[in-house]
């Protein structure tokens, strides 16, 4: 049963990720991205990290996608012509593809990563949100503070960036009116 669920959610995740990259319309891409993130959240749940699955759905499939859709609708970018990628992009892609093939072969065919051990205990520590809270507020207290400060900085930065530039040209229309 668990195997069938894994294959189903893995297929959903990978197919949706592929459609995100291949969609002409950004709205379609954003909607496929919801499916990709929910599929990844289901994979987290299969790995018994239920808290992370909930956070993934809330933050990614909720907040991030809503932001994306809002910006897509705001900008109203409708035309996306088929563009041939440039020479540099194609060369970089080809090089990356070659490196990926070599890396995958090294990882799986030649056991470059060593044997993938399965040392699981019967219970998953990540299944309990209590373990997250305990670790976050004891060993990881400083990173939590830094992350909170980062969020504050990001919020202030976004407000400053998205502020319309101050119209110091407010005097110009008056001047134009006075000219004739």
């Amino acid at each position: 049963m668990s195997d069938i669920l894994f294959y189903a959610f893995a297929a959903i995740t990978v197919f949706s990720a592929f459609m995100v990259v291949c969609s002409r319309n950004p709205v379609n891409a954003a909607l496929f991205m919801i499916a990709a993130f929910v599929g990844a959240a289901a994979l987290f749940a299969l790995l018994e990290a239920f808290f992370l699955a909930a956070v993934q759905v809330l933050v990614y499939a909720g907040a991030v996608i809503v932001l994306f859709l809002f910006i897509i609708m705001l900008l109203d970018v409708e035309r996306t012509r088929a563009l041939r990628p440039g020479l540099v992009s194609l060369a970089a892609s080809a090089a990356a593809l070659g490196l990926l093939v070599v890396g995958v072969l090294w990882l799986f065919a030649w056991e470059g990563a060593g044997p993938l051990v399965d040392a699981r205990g019967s219970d998953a520590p990540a299944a309990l949100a209590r373990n997250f809270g305990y670790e976050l507020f004891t060993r990881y207290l400083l990173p939590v503070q830094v992350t909170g400060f980062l969020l504050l900085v990001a919020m202030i930065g976004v407000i400053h960036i998205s502020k319309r530039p101050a119209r110091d040209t407010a005097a110009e229309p008056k001047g134009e009116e006075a000219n004739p």
Partner: protein
Amino acid sequence: MSIGLDSYLVVAGLVFVIGFFGVLLRRNTLIVLMGLELMLNGCNIALVAFSRYHATPANPMMEGNLFVFFIITVAAAEVAVGLAIIVQLFRLRQTVMLNELQLLKD
């Protein structure tokens, strides 16, 4: 659970690679940002899988899960800042296509 760690790693790698080529080959800035998110998501799947498959009662391996938690937080901040920059870019140049943003080329 007879699904091995390598199956999860293959899924994570595929998602990462798809996002990577999206970043390289797409010209729409919004899709490029989505590709970045897909790459982060692939890394998250690999981290959660590793920390699940190596968790023992003696060593619960919560580090990977907590790292994923921090990655999700930082990615949300990154998306907010990136989209604000894209909005300002669109106001300035009326386009979000990367091949039309070549102000410094001349």
